[in-house]
């Protein structure tokens, strides 16, 4: 991770002076580097030896593309802060944030110029992320089920981690594992947001307001009363809907445990050394347990 951090810093040094401050603001603070970690773990699960240049380059570019998705999400959600500080569009304005996103994508592809298979995977990722965001927005405020949540989350966060897994192992054998890890990550995030809503009075308000199908929402709206508020926010107050979500947290946690089990089975079935992948599952599962 130190090597990756240095690499990102070197990359920013070589970028345009005009955008450097915004890039430093976005990249040099607070990232968990969970996606690069997934790439490294998938590599370690299938091969021995030091991390090769191609894998390190993939890790850099996945971090670039992930940050593009964050910048766009923040603009769409009108989020003023992320990781406890101002979002890029709040700090530098929407125009700068959008143009910087385009610059980062172009740089990402340039970085991958010697890795055709990697380019194909990043192209798949960008296409799927775009489709997932549109699908999620189109399906908001509808009485859908857990299977629908699974489909949306699988295309959103799931596609990101699927591609991470493919970049790491380069055989496609860990693709399903990556998808399950992404699904778990997405679900833990959903549950964590509702917990934040309950305990800290913050987090997840945007999803609640917009009627986005989260895992607790998919479980809660099985109750017709909750479904009525979810589909038509004017008919009841959002705090009441939040209480329906909180009531479904144990069921949501149990469902996440099931996904974690599926991930472990997948790791043990297809990895030469499943230990790094099982560790990823455990680490992700903790995200909803604060």
């Amino acid at each position, binding site marked *: 991770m130190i090597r990756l951090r240095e690499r990102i810093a070197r990359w920013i040094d070589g970028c345009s002076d005009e955008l450097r401050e915004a890039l430093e603001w976005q990249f040099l603070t607070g990232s968990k580097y969970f996606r690069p970690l997934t790439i490294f773990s998938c590599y370690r699960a299938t091969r021995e030896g030091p991390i090769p240049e191609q894998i390190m380059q993939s890790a850099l570019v996945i971090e670039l593309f992930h940050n593009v998705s964050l910048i766009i999400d923040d603009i769409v959600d009108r989020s003023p802060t992320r990781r406890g500080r101002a979002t890029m569009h709040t700090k530098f304005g929407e125009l700068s944030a959008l143009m910087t996103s385009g610059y980062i994508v172009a740089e990402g592809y340039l970085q991958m110029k010697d890795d055709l298979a990697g380019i194909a995977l990043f192209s798949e990722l960008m296409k799927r992320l775009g489709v997932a965001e549109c699908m999620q927005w189109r399906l908001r405020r509808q*009485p859908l*089920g*857990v*299977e*629908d949540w*699974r489909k949306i989350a699988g295309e959103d966060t799931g596609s990101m981690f699927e591609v991470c897994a493919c970049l790491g192992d380069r055989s496609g*054998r860990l693709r*399903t594992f990556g998808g399950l890890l992404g699904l778990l990550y997405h679900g833990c995030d959903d549950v964590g947001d509702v917990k934040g809503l309950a305990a800290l009075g913050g987090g997840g308000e945007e999803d609640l307001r917009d009627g986005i199908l989260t895992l607790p929402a998919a479980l809660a709206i*099985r*109750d*017709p009363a909750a*479904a009525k508020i979810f589909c038509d926010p004017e008919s009841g107050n959002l705090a009441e809907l939040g209480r329906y979500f909180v009531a479904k947290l144990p069921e949501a946690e149990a469902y996440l445990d099931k996904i974690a089990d599926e991930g472990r089975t*997948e790791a043990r*079935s*297809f990895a030469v050394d499943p230990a790094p992948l099982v560790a990823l599952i455990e680490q992700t599962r903790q995200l909803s347990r604060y």
Partner: protein
Amino acid sequence: MLNAEDIFGFGSGRSGHDPVTGFLLAMRDAWMTGTGLKESGSGQSMPRGNPETGLPAATLLRPMISALGAMADLAAANRQGFGQPGAGPAAHPSPGARHDPSAADFLLPIGQAMMIAANRSVSYWLGLAQIFESHQATLVQAIGVKAIDGHMTGSERLVTADALRALLREVGDLAIREALLFQNELSALDESLVQTFEQPEPSGSYRRRWRAKL
């Protein structure tokens, strides 16, 4: 319980086999045992062969079991041919087989491939049984009185539909996982075959014997 020995008429009194013959016979027996278990132990929840024809699983697996028996016979005949030239029908194998001591090298991988297929089949059926077991309540609800009478409320219908979709997804996921595992195991076998039959490097530098089209 179905006795496959009776059905297929194979004797079990062979002893003192060479490793290849023994291996193939053991595999054949494993298949027959598995067939019998499936017939007797799975009850009504497991499909018993082709539902349209009503054939038992044992009948459907007959070609596989027959092939294993035939391979075992071939392996035994080969051994006999080497040991006792001129004695019995096995003393007249094809010229290639008579002078090729690596015949067993071919039979073993075929046997291993069949064993892999058998394991994967069993694993798939077990997985399927587990999935159906875990969704039993949903299935009962889906075909229950309320559903038939059309007395389900809107939310009940949504929940049942969601659960049925989960069942379908899990069955599909299982099929894909087992197919990928099957493919991986066959690839590993393929790799070991390549290494077993790898020709020694020709002496001297490699020279192309053809011209590239311009």
